[in-house]
C-alpha cells in the first residue's frame, strides 16, 4: 500500500496537512462547520481583525473577472475585543486545532494593540500581519510597499508576542524579495504571500467602475502564476517558512505552491465559489501525491529550486 504523509511543520507546530482557508474567505471558521467537520483543515486563517469595529467600504464590493474576482470589502470586522470575546469561543467549540489570527492596522500602535491581545489566546497558534493596509501616519501609503515600514511593523509586533509572526505581503510592489528580507531581518518567523493584486473593472453599460470604491483586490485562479513566481522569489531570499497563497483551487495547485517554496498553503477566493474547496483538496492530496510519486509532502518544499 502506498502511504502518504501530509504533515508539515509550521514554526514548531505540526499541521496534519498544509491546507488553510485564507483570511476573509472563511469567516471566523465556525460558520463553515455547518457543512463539514472543519477539524480536517491544517488550520484556519481568521477574518482580518482591527482594533476598532469596522463596517468597511460601501457596496457594491464585488466584481467578477475571468477566472477570478475583485473585492473591496474594506476589512469589515467587529473589532479585536469582540473577536476575542465572541468569535473565538464559538470557533473553539467546533475546532480543536490552533488558528491563525489575521491582524490589520492603520498605525503601528493598532497592530501592536491587537497582537498583544491575540498573544494571550491559547487557541491562536500564529499571528499573520496584513501589511497591505494604508498607514494613516504616512499619507495613507501601504505599510507593505516599503522595506522600512514593513520592518517597523514587524519589529513592533515581535516585541509584544511570543507566538510565531507571519508577515502577509502585498504583491503590489516592485521587489517582493527585498520586502521579505526586511521582515526576516526584523524578526519575522515567516512570510505569507500573496495578498490580492490591485485591480479594477468598469461596467461598459454605465461607463463607471463596478465597485463603489472603484478599485479592489483581484484574487482567484487567474492570479496563481503571479503567486507561484513571488513565492519562488521569496523562498530564494529568506530562510524562514512561507505560507503560499493566490489562486489555489486544487491539490495540484497546493503541490505546485509547495514546490515553489511554501511550507503551508492557503485557499482563498475558491472557498467563495466552492464552500467545500478545502475539504476536496485535502481528500484529493493523497491521490495526487501518489500519481506524482510523492510519499512525504514536506519533502517537496522548494523542490523547484
Amino acid at each position, binding site marked *: 500500500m502506498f502511504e502518504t504523509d501530509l504533515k508539515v511543520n509550521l514554526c514548531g507546530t505540526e499541521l496534519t496537512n498544509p491546507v488553510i482557508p485564507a483570511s*476573509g*474567505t*472563511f*469567516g471566523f471558521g465556525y*460558520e*463553515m462547520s*455547518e*457543512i463539514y467537520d472543519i477539524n480536517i483543515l491544517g488550520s484556519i486563517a481568521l*477574518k482580518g481583525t482591527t482594533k476598532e469595529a469596522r*463596517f*468597511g467600504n460601501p*457596496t*457594491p*464590493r*464585488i*466584481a*467578477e*473577472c*475571468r*477566472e*477570478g*474576482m475583485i*473585492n473591496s*470589502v474594506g476589512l*469589515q470586522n467587529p473589532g479585536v475585543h469582540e473577536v476575542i470575546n465572541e468569535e473565538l469561543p464559538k470557533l473553539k467549540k467546533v475546532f480543536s486545532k490552533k488558528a491563525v489570527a489575521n491582524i490589520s492596522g492603520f498605525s503601528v500602535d493598532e497592530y501592536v494593540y491587537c497582537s498583544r491581545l491575540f498573544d494571550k489566546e491559547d487557541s491562536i497558534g500564529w499571528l499573520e500581519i496584513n501589511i497591505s493596509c494604508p498607514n494613516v501616519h504616512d499619507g495613507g501609503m501601504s505599510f507593505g510597499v516599503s522595506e522600512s515600514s514593513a520592518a517597523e511593523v514587524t519589529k513592533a509586533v515581535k516585541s509584544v508576542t511570543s507566538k510565531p509572526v507571519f508577515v502577509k505581503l502585498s504583491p503590489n510592489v516592485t521587489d517582493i524579495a527585498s520586502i521579505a528580507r526586511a521582515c526576516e531581518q526584523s524578526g519575522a518567523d515567516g512570510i505569507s504571500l500573496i495578498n490580492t493584486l490591485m485591480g479594477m473593472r468598469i461596467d461598459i453599460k454605465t461607463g463607471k467602475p*463596478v465597485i463603489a470604491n472603484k478599485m479592489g483586490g483581484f484574487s*482567484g*485562479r487567474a492570479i496563481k502564476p503571479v503567486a507561484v513566481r513571488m513565492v519562488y522569489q521569496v523562498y530564494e531570499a529568506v530562510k524562514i517558512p512561507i505560507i503560499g497563497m493566490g489562486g489555489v483551487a486544487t491539490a495540484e495547485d497546493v503541490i505546485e505552491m509547495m514546490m515553489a517554496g511554501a511550507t503551508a498553503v492557503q485557499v482563498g*477566493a475558491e*472557498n*467563495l*465559489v*466552492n*464552500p*467545500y474547496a478545502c475539504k476536496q483538496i485535502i481528500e484529493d492530496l493523497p491521490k495526487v501525491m501518489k500519481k506524482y510519486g510523492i510519499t512525504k509532502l514536506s519533502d517537496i518544499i522548494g523542490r523547484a529550486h
Partner: protein
Amino acid sequence: MKQGIFEITENSALTENVLKMTLSGDVSEIKKSGQFINISIEGLFLRRPISVYDKTDKTVTVIYKVVGEGTERMSKMKPGDKLDVLTGLGNGFDTSLSGDKPVVIGGGVGVPPMYLLAKELKSEGKQVTAILGFNRESEIFAREEFEKICDKVIITTVDGSCGVKGFVTDALGFDYTYTYCCGPEAMLKAVYNKTVTSGQYSFEERMGCGFGACMGCSCKTKYGNKRICKDGPVLVKEEIIW
C-alpha cells in the same frame, strides 16, 4: 446550505427576456419562501444568486431576467443539462407575523419570490392580496399562477397598458394587516413610506459567496451590520436604514 448537482427539466421564455427554469435535485435545504439558490455557470467564476419562485419535493423553480453574461448563458441551457447549485441560502420570509390579511408586493424580477410566499400564506388560511408591478403589458409574467392561489391580484404597469396605471404603491387603497415586498430598491422604499403596517422587505446586493463568508454584501441596519446573503435578504421594516 447544501451543494448538489441538479438537472434542468424546463427552461422556457415567459416574456422577451424573462425565463423560467425548473431544476430537479435535492431540495431538502430549501425551507422557506424568500430564500435563494446560487448557481455555478461553466466558464464564470462567481455563482449567480436567484430567488426561489416555487418548489416541490424534488424540484425548484426560478424565474430570471437576462441582464448579463451569467443569465445570458443560463437562457441558452437545455433540459437535461446539469448544474452545480447551492441551495437553502438566505433567511427567507417569516409568515408568522402576517396577520390574517397580508399583501404581497412584487416588482419586475422581484415578483417571483412572492409566489412561494403567497402559497405559504394561503396554506396557513390567510387572505392574500398580491400587487404585481411591471413596466408594460408585454413584460407581465406569472399572472395566472398568482390568480390561481391569491384572493386578489392587482397588476400595475408604469405605462398603463394593463391594470392600474402607475406604480405598485398606486394600488394600495385597501385594508391589509402586513406587507411583504420584493423589487428594485426605489420600489421597496416607496412601499416602506406608503404602507402603514409593519412588513418584510427582500433586498438585492452584488454577492461574492452567497453564504456569509466574504462580507461582500453587507448593509447597515438598526439591529447592526447584516449580510444580505446570510442574515437577509429579508429585513423587517423596523430595522431598515435607507
